[in-house]
């Protein structure tokens, strides 16, 4: 077995770190760090505007990542992808730039109770602005979406915007079936998939899914922070108005008018995060080299190991599914009536880094009737030792709190 951990310098520099917060952001492998450094040291310049060789090379490198990202999600056309600053910006671009002009009062946007705030707030703002209606697909006790019994005026459902996987419960939603369900009710309903959580773990094929928009962040899949991807079917992306305007996104500008460039330039105003995009390219290469087959197999083993530990540990409640199928290694739990902050604080004493709080999912917290959880989440560099340390930490917490 290859030792993936040794590819990640953070663990060399922090030998005692037990990092269990990959659902928030992943650590970076050497190849990504080197790609960014190399680019700065060997190829750095502005893109798209220079006539000189350096700029042409940098432009080519940047555009190659666009092609790479297209292949990564099995799309077919490079012009269907724009680089954003992350998932949040990508959803905002879709919400404001496309749906902002196409939705009318009374139109329905379907979300779910397990959405991250970044896939709720832009729609709440449109609700205030336009008077659209929001419908939230309920979450069952096991953390699944209860969509089959939904009864809506489907003619009015213009968009279903859903997360592929829950950042709190780890549930992987049966997204193809859900898309089929809604497209059958109304073929004109658009589908946006938030792949921020799933993209590091699962092979995504936008053609098979038959979704219309797909968004994700580089920093959750080993790449640099500050880069994200918005993919949309070509006719939809072409029809999207730029939310940010200025340099680079024009054909001509005069005192009177501006003529906008075609996609993707139209939607990439200003100087983009070039080195971040280059780093994303290296992250894609690294993930593909390991392969989703292996990622899935290894993670499943670790998830099963962790679930067994949770089942045995007294006074610990694991939220969401207790089965290893259709779930990622994202574990939200509570220990007795101990608050998640206290959990995270005491776990930190033994170098165990977990997240506590509402995880930007207050709608889900409310649905589960809780105010916060402690969350441990894994990725390819985690081992059974990390999980053992988590549970040793949990025992320590119980001791401190005398439960």
């Amino acid at each position, binding site marked *: 077995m290859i030792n993936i951990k040794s590819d990640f310098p953070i663990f060399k520099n922090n030998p005692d770190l037990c990092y269990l917060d990959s659902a928030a952001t992943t650590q970076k492998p050497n190849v990504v760090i080197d790609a960014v450094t190399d680019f700065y040291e060997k190829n750095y310049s502005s893109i798209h505007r220079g006539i000189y060789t350096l700029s042409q090379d940098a432009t080519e490198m940047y555009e190659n990542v666009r092609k790479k990202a297209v292949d990564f999600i099995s799309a077919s056309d490079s012009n269907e992808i724009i680089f954003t600053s992350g998932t949040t910006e990508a959803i905002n671009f879709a919400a404001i730039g496309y749906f902002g002009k196409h939705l009318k009062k009374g139109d329905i946007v379907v979300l779910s109770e397990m959405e991250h705030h970044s896939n709720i707030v832009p729609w709440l703002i449109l609700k205030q602005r336009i008077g659209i209606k929001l419908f939230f697909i309920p979450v069952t006790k096991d953390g699944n979406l209860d969509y089959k019994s939904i009864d809506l005026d489907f003619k009015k459902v213009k968009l279903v915007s859903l997360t592929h996987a829950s950042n709190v419960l780890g549930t992987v939603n049966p997204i193809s079936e859900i898309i089929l369900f809604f497209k059958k009710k109304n073929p004109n309903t658009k589908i946006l998939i938030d792949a921020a959580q799933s993209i590091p773990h699962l092979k995504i094929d936008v053609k098979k899914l038959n979704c219309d928009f797909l968004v994700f962040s580089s920093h959750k899949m080993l790449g640099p922070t500050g880069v994200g991807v918005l993919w949309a079917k070509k006719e939809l992306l072409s029809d999207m108005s730029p939310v940010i305007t200025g340099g680079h996104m024009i054909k001509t500008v005069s005192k009177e008018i501006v003529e906008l460039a075609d996609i993707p330039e139209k939607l990439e105003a200003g100087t983009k995060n070039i080195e971040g995009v280059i780093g994303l390219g290296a992250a894609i290469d690294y993930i593909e080299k390991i392969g989703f087959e292996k990622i899935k197999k290894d993670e499943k083993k670790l998830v099963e190991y962790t679930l067994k530990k949770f089942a045995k540990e007294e006074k610990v409640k694991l939220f969401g599914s207790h089965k290893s199928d259709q779930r990622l290694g994202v574990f939200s739990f509570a220990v007795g009536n101990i*608050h*998640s*902050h206290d959990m995270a604080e005491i776990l930190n004493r*033994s170098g165990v880094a977990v997240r506590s*709080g509402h995880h930007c999912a207050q709608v889900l917290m409310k649905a589960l009737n809780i105010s*916060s959880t402690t969350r441990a989440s894994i990725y390819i560099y985690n081992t059974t030792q990390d999980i053992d340390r988590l549970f040793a930490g949990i025992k320590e917490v119980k001791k401190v709190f005398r439960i």
Partner: protein
Amino acid sequence: MTNVKKLNNHDDSLYRELVLDHWENPLNYGKIKSPDIKSVGHNPVCGDQIEITAVVKKGVLTDVAFESTGCAISKASASLFLEKIKGEKIKKIRSLKPKDALEELGITLTPARTKCALLVFTTFQKHLK
């Protein structure tokens, strides 16, 4: 070279007896039926909520209660601080500073946990302004 602080050398001052006692059995916990003051505060970082209800008679805080979803630090702090100001003149309470609330806990806090400890103070003071 390691960036992780030396492990396992924490004294347990953060969760010393006093904090745990007040976490387990907070003073003045609950809700007053027809309060003169009702103030709700949130810690936006974690979504924790505290609701304080109080009775004021002739410029004196005669009764006060709180309910909270917060952590041990925020609960213990609320318990201690409200006990401290109960029976005091509103005028005097108004002049209190954050350090007066923190000193009740008597422990050193990181900036994140200071927010937890001060939730009770900011929520109550907000209402006196």
